[in-house]
């Protein structure tokens, strides 16, 4: 399997791997380790923006790289009910083979599982944690 430079760099560094603790943290996960792909995001929300982000991923290098990149890109951004970049754009950016598109959808599910409760919480419509 060949990986582009971006994929290899983020797979190898995986700088934001881990979990966040404390107040204001929203966690979302998707996938299943037994199925070969599992992703989790932790987002610390402050004043409607992401102040800190981390991820865990039991997954292939493409998935790890995309999750790591998203966690990095998220910091400082406003909460939005979507990925910072579309699945198709992520696929292009990381040269993800079409056979692995499902794994990008797992990432999207994990992202939304963290983001949507944070938005609900901020808007006072839903209480999480």
């Amino acid at each position, binding site marked *: *399997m060949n*990986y582009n430079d971006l994929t290899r760099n983020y*797979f*190898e560094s*995986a700088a934001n*791997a*881990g*979990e966040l603790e404390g107040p204001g943290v929203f966690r979302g996960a998707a996938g299943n*380790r*037994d199925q*070969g*792909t*599992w992703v*989790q995001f932790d987002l610390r929300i402050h004043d409607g923006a992401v102040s800190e982000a981390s991820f*865990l*991923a*039991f*997954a*292939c*290098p493409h998935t*790890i790289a995309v999750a790591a990149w998203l966690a990095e890109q998220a910091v400082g951004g406003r909460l939005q009910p979507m990925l910072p970049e579309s699945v198709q754009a992520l696929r292009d950016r990381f040269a993800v*083979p*079409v*056979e*692995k598109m499902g794994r990008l959808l797992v990432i999207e599910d994990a992202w939304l599982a963290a983001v949507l409760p944070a938005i609900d919480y901020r808007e006072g419509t839903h209480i999480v944690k």
Partner: protein
Amino acid sequence: MNTARMPVYLDHAATTPVEPLVAARMAEVLSSETEFGNPASSSHGYGDVAAALVESARAQVAAAVGAAAPEIVWTSGATEANNLAIFGVAQYYRERGRHIVTSRTEHKAVLDPCRELERRGWEITYLVPDREGLLDPAQVAAALRPDTVLVSLMHVNNEIGVVQNIAAVGAICARHGGAWLHVDAAQSVGKCPLHFASLGADLMSLSSHKVYGPKGVGALVISRGADLGGRGRVQLSALQFGGGQERALRAGTLPTHQVVGMGLAFELAAKISSVETARVARLRERLWRGLASLGGVVRNGSATRSVPHLLNVSFEGVEGESLLAAIRPDLAVSTGSACTSALAEPSYVLRALGRSERLSESSLRFGLGRTTTEADVDIAIACLTQALSRLRKVAGTLVAGSMPVA
């Protein structure tokens, strides 16, 4: 590829580097003004010289595997030898029976011919080994039927290195009277005792490039020994036709330099086998101890009934493709998955042993050989230590007994 910094080679079960003495002898044959003749050209001296080289190599191979020289039929490799054995027996004995016994953990070069025969109407029984990868010869006895014409089993498994009790199977086939025994011994030569005449086998496949010889040449050993069980000697239908070479079983001009290389490689392997085996066994133990200390490491295949050149382990808590990507710059090993596309298929051998899909995918086969040193083993341990630590941290799967992550 930039060869300035190649990874440590621990994939000797896939192929071996050509022994320098073998390469030199092959080069001599290729460049000689007297050894280039067609071995089948009996009308002049050039052909005689080449034929003598071929027969000398035949004797070398035969001596290395406990066979008689006339029993050796040259092929392009073990895959062709397996095909010739399986299709050759099936075709020749098709009126007597159309049932074949093999196992689920055979090499694809046996399983694919069997599947093709299934498509053509033959019945195949696939034996399932135990969790250590071993077959009980009684399983073979139970699978034999009056219409069984062939039992095809490997001597040493190419993925997990376990050694099957072929002699016991041979005795069972002889008692049956109608089932010929074919043994894929591509992984055996130079790694464990192999004596064709003592195995009770009728056919045995050999490979050159697994034994520090050249690629593109192998042999099928066809028994002409004692008539076990009063059933006569095994007969084969040829699969290719042309000049009638190799007793009309394998037509085609023989590549003299290739068979000379295989002959010398086998002779050298027989000479250094016991010393080399003991050395490699020590290295494998060092490797296993180092890997086992990482925690969450499962050994695949019997530790006691296996060749010392091979170690297959599964790593818990890491995804297979990521594991391979993490070690690829530093280690050349085989994985427990077949990457036929972007999505890997877990090893069918490990699945047959009862390993889960995930554990099968996160397995590595370490093939040790003549070029392997203690330093190579230590590099492998260090590389895996780092990769597992990092990937388990990323996956949130630190396992009990594993090293703490900084």
